[in-house]
């Protein structure tokens, strides 16, 4: 996508949307496969092996199965909200792609409020989960929805505080500028605490273990999506993995230098590869964590958030502000 090709703004948007849609679906399918492979090998088993080479086509087969399944509406459920929720959970995820800086110039829209936009839209996910859980007319789903909201309050604040300390240094909310700033030194080295807090909070944001308390399959059966069948469940599932990609991509841009190589050494590898490499590595780490730890209880997550993450990130911001002022 060179500058010359992008004469019309509309062309650029539509092309971007198409690429995003295609990429997000393929990416989610790949991530589901990856998750199963990572889980498998961590547990000394091969994971899916039957469909395609090393089971690569397994998730596509599963997807086809999900599409073919009947959408069941539970008794006395709120029909409109019930079907709205899966759509609502997937929409904001797509918006996130608009501002992700895959490489220099490979951004659909480099807005000066890019960082804000991603986090503003990702919050809608919680609303969608609440809607889905509420509309299902199922107590497990409701409990999951309630937990999700409680969890949201706990992790959103440290998440944004951690991001803020980066923004304070760069003086910009634009992803491109933040990544440019990390040309030689990544922010994870300057702001290790903020980076760590971001990763923990991001795991919670995507409802991944050990913070998968709204789903908590051993407690709430499947939490908020207990009653969803077929593609209703499929959309929740795809959204979870796409969301995971987005938070990891954001983490890569904010803390791991985006398209930049380590300490400015790019080894001649194109920026987009650096970006994807780092993003997928972070995704792998999140998977690795999921398949290692037991789940925390939601009050413990709150305790951890209010007593550890928020004070530490606040302190981090204050120190950052002072250092920035002095320099």
């Amino acid at each position: 996508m060179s500058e010359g090709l992008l004469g019309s703004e509309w062309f650029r948007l539509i092309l971007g949307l198409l690429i995003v849609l295609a990429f997000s679906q393929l990416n989610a399918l790949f991530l589901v496969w990856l998750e199963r492979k990572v889980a498998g090998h961590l547990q000394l088993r091969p994971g899916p092996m039957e469909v395609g080479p090393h089971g690569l086509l397994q998730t596509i087969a599963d997807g086809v199965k999900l599409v073919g399944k009947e959408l069941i509406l539970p008794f006395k459920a709120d029909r409109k909200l019930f079907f709205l929720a899966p759509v609502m959970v997937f929409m904001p995820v797509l918006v996130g792609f608009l501002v992700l800086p895959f490489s220099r110039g490979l951004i659909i829209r480099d807005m000066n409020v890019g960082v804000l936009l991603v986090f503003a839209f990702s919050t809608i996910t919680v609303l969608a989960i609440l809607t889905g859980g509420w509309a299902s007319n199922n107590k497990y789903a409701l409990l999951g929805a309630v937990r999700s909201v409680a969890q949201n309050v706990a992790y959103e604040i440290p998440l944004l505080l951690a991001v803020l300390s980066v923004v304070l240094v760069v003086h910009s909310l634009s992803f491109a500028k933040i990544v440019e700033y990390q040309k030689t030194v990544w922010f994870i080295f300057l702001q290790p605490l903020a980076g760590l807090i971001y990763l923990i909070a991001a795991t919670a944001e995507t409802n991944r273990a050990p913070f998968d308390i709204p789903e908590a399959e051993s407690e709430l059966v499947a939490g908020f999506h207990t009653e969803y069948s077929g593609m209703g469940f499929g959309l929740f599932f795809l959204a979870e993995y796409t969301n995971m990609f987005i938070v990891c991509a954001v983490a890569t841009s904010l803390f791991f230098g985006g398209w930049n190589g380590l300490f400015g050494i790019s080894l001649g590898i194109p920026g987009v590869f650096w970006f994807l490499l780092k993003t997928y590595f972070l995704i792998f780490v999140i998977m690795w964590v999921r398949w290692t730890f037991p789940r925390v209880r939601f009050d413990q997550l709150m305790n951890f958030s209010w007593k550890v993450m928020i004070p530490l990130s606040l302190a981090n911001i204050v120190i950052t502000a002072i250092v920035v002022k002095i320099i």
Partner: protein
Amino acid sequence: MAELEKIEASDRVYSLNLGPQHPSTHGVLRIVLDLDGEYIIKADPVIGYGHRGHEKMGENRPYKQFLPNTSRMDYLSGMLFNHGFVLAVEKLVGIKVPERAKYIRVIASELNRISSHLLWFGTYLMDLGGFTPFLYAFDDREQILDILDSITGSRLTYSYCRFGGVSRDVDLKFIEMTRAFLKRMEKRWADYDSLVTKNVIFIHRTRDVGVIDRELARQYGVTGPNLRACGVAFDVRRSEPYEVYDRLDFEIPTGTKGDALDRYDVRFKEMQQSCRIIDQALDQLPEGEFLTPKVPQKLGPPKGEVYTAFESARGLTAYYMVSDGSPGPYRCHIRVPSFGNLNALNDVLPGTLVADAISILGSIDVVIPEIDR
């Protein structure tokens, strides 16, 4: 509690039907929970979904034909239940058991105890949301099943013990496999420690959760590791030694508080003690017969009754049989440990969170078909 009672009057309380189909109810258990938010106000376990009438079956068949039933009550410690039943009948009829058979039974029983505890370990972690330890535990359990498979020919419902011995002698390959297993486990304990026991999330999920204290345990007849977790060193293998347990040197691990973490610790150490027992029993294993040849096909026990207690993986289990002199028992009752252990939940669950309820249910290690019989 006063605060809770006030809430109970309000209409905020709703009931949640946990089970019979639920990922963490270990068999078919249903608990009707009255909830305020996520806090449990009242818990009413509903059991009996797996009732097969084993006691009635025992009454209308000869002792020998009841053998296969015994390993189907608590399917996780089938060998132990099998063993206990054989002990009871031998005591009633007065059958002498060769020394070698006694040792073989102890080894097989302890192997079964470890396999049962390993399965509990895995599923408990799964209840807490950790999936991977489950598969590691199953890897180890698979070794035990292979070992038991090599002598009994079965992997779960063994039917291995016979009146006056065991059905098949052990060979050198069995001893080799068992020794290799003991060696393998030495390394595995450290792995489990790093992966689970020391894990800060795990500790937070279990510490001070679901405390069963000494008095509560006594009131409900809680036995086994759940009782030992609150500091009572009561183990049938010690208090009424059967077979050769009095010749073997092993400790009875106890806890202090009786919370889920203590129960975890006790079971974990128990597995290590079982390894010690097996090691010694293998050393002492004498040569000789594995089955008394003189046992008649049709048993004619004297009139009277027998009550034999033994330590299954879940606690004090006992066979109570009344004989009228015929080849089958007049009355056959089985005292199962999970019954009391689960019963205690009536008092333990109120005031906890749903998430903790799952943790508690997992930590007391119930096998529902054993309760239902």
